[in-house]
Structures are given as C-alpha cells and as structure tokens.
C-alpha cells in the first residue's frame, strides 16, 4: 500500500498552515514581540532613554522592569498556549483554564502558600501547580461517565469546580488580616509587580517546555479538534494526548498564576485571534499563540504600569478590559 513516501518533508505550499503568509506572520510576530519588550522596558513611571542611563535608571531597568516584563511575556505565553491546547482538546473555542477550574485551583494553591508558607519562595509555584493539577484531576474524574468522557460533561464539571473553588477562595480571603488581604486581592486580579528573576526562570522553563511538548502533540490535536472518535480512528492515542494536554495546562497555568495571579482572557482571546489570522493548524496555532500571548500581556502590563502612574492597576483588569469587548466582537464576527 505504500506510495513510496520520500523523506523530503516540506511545508505544504497551499494550505493555511504552511503558506508564505504564515511564515511572514511568524516573523512579524517575533519582531513585534521584540519591539514590545523594548518599548515596555523604556516606558513606565520613570521614562528611560535607550542610550543614556544613570545608575539609578540602570537599576530600575535591570532589577525591576526587565524581570517584570520578561515574566509578563512568559505568563502570557503560558496562558495562551494552555488555552490553545485546551480548546483543541475539548473541541470548544470557549474552553480555557478559567472555565475548567484550572486557574482557580492554582489560585487556591497559591493562596494556601501565601497564607501558610510565605517565607518559602518555591511554595507558591509548587502549591499553584498542585492546586491546578488537583482541580484538573477532579474535573476529569467528574466528567468521566460510564460511556467515557464527553465535552459537555467536562465543561459542566469545570464550571462546578470553578464555582466551588471560588467560594473557598472567598471564604479564605475573609479570614486574612487586612495587610495580607489587600496584597492578595491585588494579586488575585493579576499582579506582576512582585516579579523576581527566580520567578522568571521558573515561568520561562514552564513556558518553553510547555510550548515544545504541546507542539509535539499539535498534529494529534488537529485530529482531536475534529472529534475524539475521528482522532482515534486515524491513529491518535486519545487518552495519552488528553493526559499530556491536561498535565501541561496544569503546569503552565500553575506557574503563571503563582507568578502573577489570575490574568484572565489571555487563554481565550489570543488563540482565537491567531486562528483568525492563520487558520486552525495547531502546529502554527500553538507557537504563534505563545508569541502573541507574550505580546498581549506585556502590552497590558505596560498600560497597567503607566495609565495612572505612579500608582498601578492590576494587569488582569487590563486584559479583561481589552479581552471582553474583543471577545464579543469576535463572537459577532464569527
């Protein structure tokens, strides 16, 4: 039956996934990311010049601003990649970490670390990942029926777990003392101001590994996006891909939430915009979402830092302000 396939692997010239337009768009996105990072580094309550920095300005740039900007880029990439993966896996364009309880699990985990292990620097990412993982596992178990798991059960289970975890977060918040309460509330809305270089490395590692591993599942996700039975028929180990994507989402969202709190709409909006631009091939959607997510969060954080400087706004509020109307527009357009 073999048609004598050659080893001459190419990008298909006429498909949306492999067209010159996609390559140009990829290059443009990388350029845009670099410009955004540069602009974000220079903008802020203290405006910096590109060429002439004094010691204080150098300290602002390298000790405060750059870790924050780079962390924001990693958080944006992580959330966008997790959203792209979950949407393809669940065949639901509305699926994202927040809808499925993953983010709230991470938020609760971080809150526990915040309340009881504040001095231990690794407690937040570890507890956030554990919380995201437990929430994902709970949703997965609840969604599994006698005849297997279907998308409707999964989304419904996600809503139930999200609501349940939200109520626990509210209960715990009411027990915090006033000083911790303000800090936690700000963090809960998305806050990159606590960025550290360690936090950046941790989130960077998760974002890079997550994007690469999820990209390795992109072809399988292309089939799963059409239907799980289809994917199974055409050779995808559906259960294995499901576990990989859920685990990756937990890691990506866990590390992102631990570093920055709940930055909403990134996992929902960014993959949508990418699909509108280049089509649905996950081999491109996943890496393009990573770059676009990074740009989106860095831009939003720049606005959060500069809009009412020297005071700051929570970055999650900015992403929601941009994301919600954009999402309505996208819904209407589609």
């Amino acid at each position, binding site marked *: 039956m073999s048609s004598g396939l050659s080893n001459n*692997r*190419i990008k*298909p010239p*006429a*498909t949306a996934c492999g067209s010159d337009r996609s390559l140009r768009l990829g290059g443009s996105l990388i350029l845009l990311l670099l410009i955004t990072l540069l602009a974000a580094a220079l903008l802020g309550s203290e405006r910096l010049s590109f060429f002439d920095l004094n010691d204080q300005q150098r300290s602002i740039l390298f000790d405060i601003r750059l870790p924050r900007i780079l962390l924001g880029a990693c958080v944006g990439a992580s959330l966008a990649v997790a959203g792209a993966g979950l949407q393809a896996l669940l065949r*639901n364009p509305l699926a994202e970490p927040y809808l499925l309880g993953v983010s709230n699990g991470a938020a609760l985990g971080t809150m526990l670390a915040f309340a009881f292990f504040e001095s231990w620097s690794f407690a937040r990412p570890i507890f956030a990942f554990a919380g995201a993982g437990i929430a994902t596992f709970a949703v997965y178990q609840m969604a599994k029926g006698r005849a297997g798991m279907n998308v409707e059960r999964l989304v419904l289970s996600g809503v139930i777990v999200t609501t349940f975890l939200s109520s626990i977060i509210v209960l715990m918040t009411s027990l915090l003392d006033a000083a911790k309460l303000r800090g936690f509330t700000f963090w809960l809305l998305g806050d990159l101001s606590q960025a550290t270089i360690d936090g950046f490395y941790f989130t960077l590692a998760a974002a890079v590994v997550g994007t690469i591993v999820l990209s390795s599942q992109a072809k399988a996700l292309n089939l799963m996006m*059409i239907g799980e039975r289809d994917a199974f028929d*055409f050779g995808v180990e559906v259960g294995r891909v499901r576990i990989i994507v859920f685990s990756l989402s937990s890691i990506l969202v866990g590390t992102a939430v631990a570093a920055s709190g709940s930055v909403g709409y990134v996992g929902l909006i960014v993959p949508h915009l990418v699909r509108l631009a280049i*089509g*649905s091939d996950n081999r491109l959607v996943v890496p393009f979402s990573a770059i676009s997510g990074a740009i989106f969060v860095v831009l939003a954080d720049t606005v959060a830092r500069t809009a009412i400087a020297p005071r700051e706004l929570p970055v999650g509020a900015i992403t929601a302000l941009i994301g919600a109307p954009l999402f309505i527009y996208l819904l209407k357009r589609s």
Partner: protein
Amino acid sequence: MLEVRNITISYGKTAVLKDVSFGLNNGEIIAVLGANGAGKTTLIRALNGTLPVSKGEILLDGKPFGSFSRRQIAQKIAVVAQENETKFPVTVREFVLSGSFARGTAFGWETRDDLRIAENALQNCDLSNYSGRLMNELSGGERQRVVLARALATEAGILMLDEPTANLDLAHQGMMFRLVRERCKNDDCSAIIITHDLNLASEFADQIVLLKDGKFFAKGTPKEILRPENLNGVFDVKVLLDENPVSGKVRVTTIY
C-alpha cells in the same frame, strides 16, 4: 486481511453483538446490512479497535488486534464515519491531510507525496475546487465526500464505511461506491460498507453479511443473500426481486 472469529461485544452486561464471524479477503467488498439497532455500527467500531471484544477475537493480517499500536491499526484501516462536524475553521485540504497522521512523525509537515495523494483523493471525489473551502461551510453531502477523500488519502488497505451514502445525491452515491470498487480492484485493498441501500450492495459488494438483533443472520454473495425470505426475516418487508437489465445483478424493489 481481516478475520472475525465468533466475536461478542457488550455494553456493560448487555451483549449488543453476539457470536459474529466472517473473513475479509484482499480486493473484497463486504456490505453489512441490517435493520436499525442491529449492531452494524458496533461491528465497525469493534473491527476498528474502538470497542473491546468481550468474547472471540479479531485477526488483522493474521495477528490479534492487541499486537498492533493505535497508529499501526490506523495505517491499515481507514474509517468513514457517520458524523463529522467541526467547530473550528478547518479547510478541506487540512481535513484531508489530517488523515496522514498515522504515516507521519510527531513534529514536521506533510511530504510532497502526502500532498499529491490528498489532491488525487479530492479529485477522485469530485472536490478539486474545494481545497480552500471551510468544512463547516459545506453541505452534508459535500462533507461526506471530503470524509471519504480523507479515508482514501490514508492509503490504508482496509476501508470501513459507515453509511457513506446517507447524505449523498444519486450521482454521488454511485460515485462513492465506484471509487471504493476501483480502489479494491487496483490497490490491493478491501472494504466493509454499512449501508441500507440493498441495490448498491447488490451492484458493488462481493459478499453481504446480514445482521439481526445483534446476531449473525446470513452471509454470502448478493445473489445468495438478497432473497425474499432473508430480507423479510431481517427487515420485515416484502420485496420483489428481478435482474438489473444493465448490470445483470439482483435488483430489489420494496413492496409497500
């Protein structure tokens, strides 16, 4: 190529398919007929490895199903399922190329051969001008043809088609069966087709398997199986049989 030995499929404690046996040889088309709920789709899903077999065994190229990975089975068996609805903007070409998953690697792109095979499959299914169109903009019949094109593009040795003509007009019903017939004649391929169209089964199938209430009812050539007593026994209808004046095959007319 495929041997089914006394298989029973159960959902929980309820057996929905009992003690079914038959073999599929190279170049052969088997039509599976039966009333609604007879277990036809269950049979296809079991033969594709989607449903586990409670009793009996299925041999693929002489080896038990369990000895093959999911990817290896997909390289040998391509399925044309009943439903295919996409919620994402997937083009026809992307959809057809997705069928090459089992041949490819985790990373990377399709080969020139993959593209050529996909283009040929689209051309054969009368879809040459549809490559760039979105799947969710097509009619049910057009989508069904794309689903067949994807199965053909896998170049698998066994095609399994579950009511492939359900949404098709008369011309494309014939086209779909002719394509499968040609593939089975030219390419060392065989097919199992679930259909409710007795006349298409008569024209194109080499063997017919009749199922009733999840049990094997009869198997043989169309001439042996398409008989009033069999059809009345399975479908509870009266039929008139004669010979198609063009092909010479059995022609079935239902008496209402």
